[in-house]
């Protein structure tokens, strides 16, 4: 019915009809699928939540005399220097040196790689400390200096795994409180933690990856980035419900973007007590409405998106595969869920209100012609599942 080029022409001439994944639900209810599909050009989706699998590559340029960095720390957070002379990789979950971690359980994990990334995007000064064994052409052996993101040649974010299509809801059936990456879980299932933007989430609005693929331009914390590959743990072969929407982890995207162009509000270091540090990043992805079927997919709503409740005190760590039940995002967002007749308070980790904000910003950028859509250069795999670790028996 429509193709990307036609949609881009409308965007460029400022005539594109762009709705958020929330707005489109009522719009289709009112106008009917057929008429709405003719009118709507783009639906914007978004998410903002902790995504551990994140990091960035930094290029510093050369000191005088030159140095081939072999070990380096940014604000005392260890980086990976085995890339090139003055290229470093900083991982979001790396702890600051001397952090007691969980030796004093539960640890606070106040500062790590994700927080350095937040500081960089905020334009704050960061300390570099680097060591080297020295070579004939790179004689410098030690360097301590401060810099901001503007002093770098490149600072490129990479998220090997982002935009998890759906995710677990975590509970704790044990008698003691536990600390997880889905938050603090009180004993005997008093509360649960979840992390998804539900009806706004990108891959829940394009569950079979028809429009989102390798090469798709995305809004990454304000920068125009793109999908560079399927994400790690991409496992689309899964249980699917209404409109083919997965009710478990499923697909993921690998994203990259220029951190110099990002907005500090959407790149935030995360401290999870008893667990560790991470990074929350805001992502927005536009979905071109190619035909009625594509529009129908974007009308998915929270009450139709289900997630599995998993016990993080035993079944998750032991990998038993047991699922306690399933709940909808409408229930989760209401603040409590019912499981086996028991009321469980629900708290999110991903921010629905920030996701709304991002979907709105991307909508404006497309309406005003600043953000054009792309056709993927390769599709994401549609059939594949996640393998557990193979442990060799000795």
């Amino acid at each position, binding site marked *: 019915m429509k193709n990307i080029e036609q949609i881009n022409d409308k965007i460029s001439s400022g005539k594109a009809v762009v709705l958020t994944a929330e707005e489109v639900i009522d719009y289709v209810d009112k106008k009917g699928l057929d008429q709405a599909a003719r009118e709507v050009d783009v639906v914007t989706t978004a998410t903002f939540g902790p995504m551990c699998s994140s990091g960035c590559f930094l290029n510093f340029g050369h000191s005088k005399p030159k140095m081939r960095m072999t070990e380096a720390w940014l604000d005392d957070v260890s980086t990976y220097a085995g890339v090139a002379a003055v290229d470093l990789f900083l991982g979001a979950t790396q702890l600051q040196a001397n952090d007691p971690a969980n030796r004093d359980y539960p640890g606070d994990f106040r500062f790590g790689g994700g927080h350095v990334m937040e500081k960089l995007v905020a334009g704050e000064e960061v300390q570099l400390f680097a060591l080297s064994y020295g070579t004939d052409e790179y004689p410098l052996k030690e360097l301590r200096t401060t810099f901001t993101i503007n002093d770098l040649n490149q600072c490129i974010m990479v998220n090997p795994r982002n935009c998890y299509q759906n995710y677990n809801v975590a509970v704790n059936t044990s008698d003691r409180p536990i600390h997880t990456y889905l938050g603090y879980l009180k004993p005997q299932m008093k509360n649960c933690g979840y992390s998804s933007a539900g009806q706004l989430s990108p891959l829940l609005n394009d569950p079979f990856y028809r429009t989102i693929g390798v090469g798709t331009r995305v809004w990454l914390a304000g920068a125009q980035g793109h999908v560079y590959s399927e994400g790690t743990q991409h496992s689309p072969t899964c249980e699917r419900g209404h409109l083919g929407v997965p009710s478990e982890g499923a697909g993921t995207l690998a994203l990259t973007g220029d951190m110099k162009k990002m907005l500090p509000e959407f790149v935030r270091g995360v401290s999870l007590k008893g667990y560790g540090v991470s990074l929350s990043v805001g992502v927005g992805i536009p979905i071109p409405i190619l035909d009625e079927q594509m529009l129908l997919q974007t009308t998915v709503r929270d009450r139709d998106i289900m997630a599995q409740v998993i016990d993080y005190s035993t079944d998750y760590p032991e990998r038993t595969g047991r699922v306690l039940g399933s709940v909808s995002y409408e229930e989760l967002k209401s603040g409590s869920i019912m499981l086996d007749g028991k009321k469980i308070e629900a708290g999110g980790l991903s921010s*629905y209100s920030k996701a709304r904000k991002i979907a709105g910003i991307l909508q404006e950028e497309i309406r005003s012609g600043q953000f054009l859509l792309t056709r993927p250069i390769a599709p994401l795999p549609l059939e594949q599942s996640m393998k557990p670790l193979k442990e060799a028996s000795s």
Partner: protein
Amino acid sequence: MSTEPITRKLMLYFPECETEKPIVYHLVKDYDLIINIFRARVTPEEEGYLVLDVTGTEEHILQGTEFIRSLGIRIDAVNKGLAWDENKCAQCGSCVPHCPTNALSIPDRNTMEIVFNTEECIECLSCIKVCPFAAVSSLF
């Protein structure tokens, strides 16, 4: 002035020397106030803090607070012991199930925006432990 009892939340700041006086005793005995202490850090020869609710008639509360002031203790009715930084808050909602009083809440489940109502806060500090973004902090 009304004789209906009202409740005010107060934060008292003690400069080093004034911590010896039995303030709460006087508030109860001399001014007929009901006191509910949320949190205190009062160590001899150091500055101290006390966060409490006082319930009584408006007149008694006024007289009581005058008495406290006369001891050189500062009363802060605006700055409470717990601060929520709206800009640092990522609006995730993790704290909400852990807040016993709904001081941190999501009044509108469509927008899912977090609202902090300092009047409701009893300074239990639960939110500080669970906030991943260090958006809530304690003054002491």
